[in-house]
């Protein structure tokens, strides 16, 4: 998993829960690199899971809620760090459709070893988008949080219906997004 997901997570924890909480969960996780993450590095996604789990314990919050909240935060960071991906994009649906066809393509150019999740989009009329998330990692909540962040960024009223699909390894989830008429 790319380091930016870790660095942004730690920054969020510092901003929302304070530097001491961030220091506490890093210290408690016994991480291989001691929590010294850099945005351009690549790290084991299980380290993020350990950090989130530790944060959940420290704040008495459920892990899915924390991951989802982090997804929303991460989207705001992406808007700042990668404005080109948002330029000329008018809606949530347009942006989400560009994730697989454009953003992940560009990501692979910079990081050929990256293994981003796969999104398969299918429009049903102007107001409904079906999006299937597939990944070797269990981060569907993060994807959902990113979607929620998108709705806020584009200021759109969209509801999400989530269906966890059976899969032997990793995770596979169908999100049905319905835009208010």
């Amino acid at each position, binding site marked *: 998993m790319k380091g930016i997901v870790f*660095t942004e997570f730690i920054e969020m924890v510092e901003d929302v829960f*304070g*530097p*001491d909480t961030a*220091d506490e969960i*890093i*210290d408690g996780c016994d991480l291989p*690199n*001691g*929590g*010294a*993450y*850099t*945005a*351009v*590095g690549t790290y084991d996604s299980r380290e993020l899971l350990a950090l989130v789990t530790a944060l959940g314990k420290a704040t008495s919050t459920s892990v899915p809620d924390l991951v989802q909240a982090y997804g929303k935060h991460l989207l705001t960071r992406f808007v700042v760090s990668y404005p080109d991906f948002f330029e000329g994009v008018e809606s949530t649906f347009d942006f989400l459709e560009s994730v697989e066809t454009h953003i992940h393509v560009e990501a692979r150019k910079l990081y050929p070893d990256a293994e981003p999740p796969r999104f398969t989009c299918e429009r049903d009329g102007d107001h409904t988008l079906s999006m299937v998330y597939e990944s070797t990692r269990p981060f569907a909540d993060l994807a959902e949080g990113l979607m929620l962040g998108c709705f806020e960024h584009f200021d759109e009223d969209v509801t999400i219906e989530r269906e966890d699909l059976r899969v032997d390894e990793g995770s596979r989830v169908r999100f049905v997004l319905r835009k208010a008429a």
Partner: protein
Amino acid sequence: MSDAGRDRRVERERAARKTAETLLEEKSRELFLAIRELEESRDHLDRILASMLNALIVTDVEGNIESMNTAARSLLGYEVEELEGRPLVELFPEDCVLRSEGIERLFETREARRGETTCTSRRDGTLQVQYSASVLETHDHEPRGIVCVLQDVSEQRSLERQLWRAQKLESIGQLAAGVAHEINTPIQYVGDNTRFVQQSVSDLTTLLAEYGRLVEKAKCGEALEEAIARIQQVAESVDVEFMLAELPVALEQSIEGVDRVAEIVGAMKQFSHPGSEEKTAVDLNEAVESSVTVARNEWKRVAEVTLDLAEDLPFVPALPGDLHQVILHVVVNAAHAIGEKNGDGEQGSIAVATRRSGDFAEIRIRDTGCGMSDSVKNRIFDPFFTTKPVGTGTGQGLAVSHDVIVNKHGGTIDVETVDGQGTTFIIRLPLDATVDASERPAA
């Protein structure tokens, strides 16, 4: 935040920075290696292109020349800078498909074109070249330009022309004895009949002289009995009745013989006419008739030839000398196949038919000869392939015929055969004069 916590945070930041710096160094090295590999790859590619014997020209998406390899510069006699930005099609004459259809057609169909045309070299003048042109695409299959490969075949074509001329002379030589025999037969009976007419004229002159004396005596009132007896005697001795009956027959046969000789000479003259480099309108039926006539001595002892020539057949744009040669080859081969099957026994048949088939004129030459096995059939158009005994066939006839029909005329030559039963050659020639034989879509 406690001092210890702050120290740990500083330490983490420092470690993160070092990791980032290490990663940056690794990426810089990777980038350096990638660039070096790219340069080596490009250099390798340049060397490959430079070592190619064929000329390679690359255009942009507008069809304007962008780059050329060494062979292209050598072939055309121009440096890249002199041709850069100029339309590729300007290298070719107006009748070349690439020029007449335009580059746009290539982009539309994405179908590679190949064929033969001419192009102008600054050093060598007009060159005969084989070309292929295909669309160069980007990684996402958008047209990027044209890749055109040229091969100079001027020398090869020149040798082929020489070979063809030698082949033609060889055929004429082989046929000369037969043609001489064909002419000799009518000449003999024309000679006999002429001598008979000459003798008859002499006898009739004698008889007419006796009649003259009879008239003179009658005018003078002299006795006529002796003169009449003399006339009867002369008439009996020259056999006037026979003479009057046979003279018209002799004259008719002589005229027929002279016509036959004229026909053979005419066919031979047409056949041996120097080959034109330009296509002209050819009467296919006449070409068939003259070729069959010239080859008569080859087939008359083994086969009966029947002609079924379509009267409504339009003239065909063709090289007459080459076409005569092809028909002759197939007819002579048919006669040989029948001879091989029947020996001197049963007469076979050769049926030659012409007809219009859509946009093509078709000649079918069917024989009842020995036919061919599949293995022979698959090789008959190969150069130097022959089933004839050593010294009797060069194996060039059908190979050159194929070249003439397919490459020079844009037509087809097909064969249907049953081993032991016979063979049919089907030759189709395009009627459309605008069809350029050298241009055809890539297979």
